[in-house]
């Protein structure tokens, strides 16, 4: 394993006496791309056949993954990462963030595309649907979450990985981007609670 070193942030404390070791990693895990391709293929097939079970499965499974990951990352892992020592945080980041780079866009695409097709099939997208207000509320929540995820979280995710790939990563840049990532994830985690409320309301009618 190739390792590079980075100077520590000045405020890292006594434990931060030496250089940080950055393990070698792939910004985009190539093996994971195969799995992403398979999942997108399943999505296209499910939409093409337009059967209830595959659409429901893809929407519920990927939606649950999206919700749980956001909640867990924003409210559990994020605060833990903030309290980790800089070397531990760097090592954790190099293992977590490349996976997030593939997982999040994939589960979001599966959830939204399968969900839209499902809503068309079930008629819940029609304005005549009794709980239409709740459906529109879900559009708004997902819309706000998308803007935060696409505008803040995803660029920070990629930028921190590119920075860590440098021979001498700048700890200040990493700190700043990680802060942005964790705060965005926290906001998305809280907004996912609204998603849970809306989806359970729609399911029970």
């Amino acid at each position, binding site marked *: 394993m190739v390792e590079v070193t980075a100077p520590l942030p000045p405020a890292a404390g006594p434990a931060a006496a030496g250089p940080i070791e950055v393990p070698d990693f792939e910004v*985009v895990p190539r093996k994971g791309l195969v799995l992403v391709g398979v999942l*997108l293929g399943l*999505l*296209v097939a499910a*939409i*093409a056949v*337009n059967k209830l079970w595959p659409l429901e499965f893809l929407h519920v499974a990927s939606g649950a993954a999206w919700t749980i990951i956001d909640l867990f990352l924003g409210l559990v892992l994020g605060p833990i990462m903030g309290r980790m020592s800089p070397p531990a945080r760097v090592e954790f980041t190099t293992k977590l963030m490349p996976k997030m780079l593939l997982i999040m*866009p994939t589960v979001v*695409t599966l959830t*939204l*595309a399968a969900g*839209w*097709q499902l809503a*068309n099939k079930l008629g819940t*997208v*029609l*304005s005549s649907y009794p709980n*239409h207000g709740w*459906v*529109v509320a879900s*559009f*708004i929540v997902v*819309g*706000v979450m*998308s*803007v*935060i995820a*696409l*505008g*803040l979280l*995803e*660029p*920070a995710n*990629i*930028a921190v990985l*590119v*920075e860590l790939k*440098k*021979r*001498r990563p*700048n700890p*200040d*840049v990493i700190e*700043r*981007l990680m802060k942005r990532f964790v705060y965005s994830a926290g906001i998305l985690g809280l907004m996912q609670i609204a998603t849970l409320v809306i989806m359970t309301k729609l399911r029970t009618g």
Partner: protein
Amino acid sequence: MSERRFPPVTELAMLSLALIVAGGIYLSSHIPNHVPLAPAVILLAGSTALLAGNLVALSRVRDFAWDRFFQVAKWSLLGYLVIAGSVEYVFLQNHLKGGPLVVLTLSLVVFAVHVPTLVGFTVARFYEPEPVG
């Protein structure tokens, strides 16, 4: 870390995305009723103007790490084209046509261009050439 001043690319990109999201919500919340397209077109035009403004502002930045920007933005563009293509596929499968299809397709184009621009900018703005040795 050097604190260079950059145009507000992130803020404008988020506003641009918010406008097309609002247009999409407006159109989809009225299905299957006929709905005036004007509000969605105005939102799309505003979003496109912000994209154009962002690209112009970015092109005027001196000593910008363009190599790094394009290196990241091109792959990001590929990824977001796949995502936009998936969403477009759903629209077509549901027989969406006419004005709403045009507006939503153009919204996807803005989305697929603006997000990679933002990703490339975020990476390049923090890029500093590594010291030799």
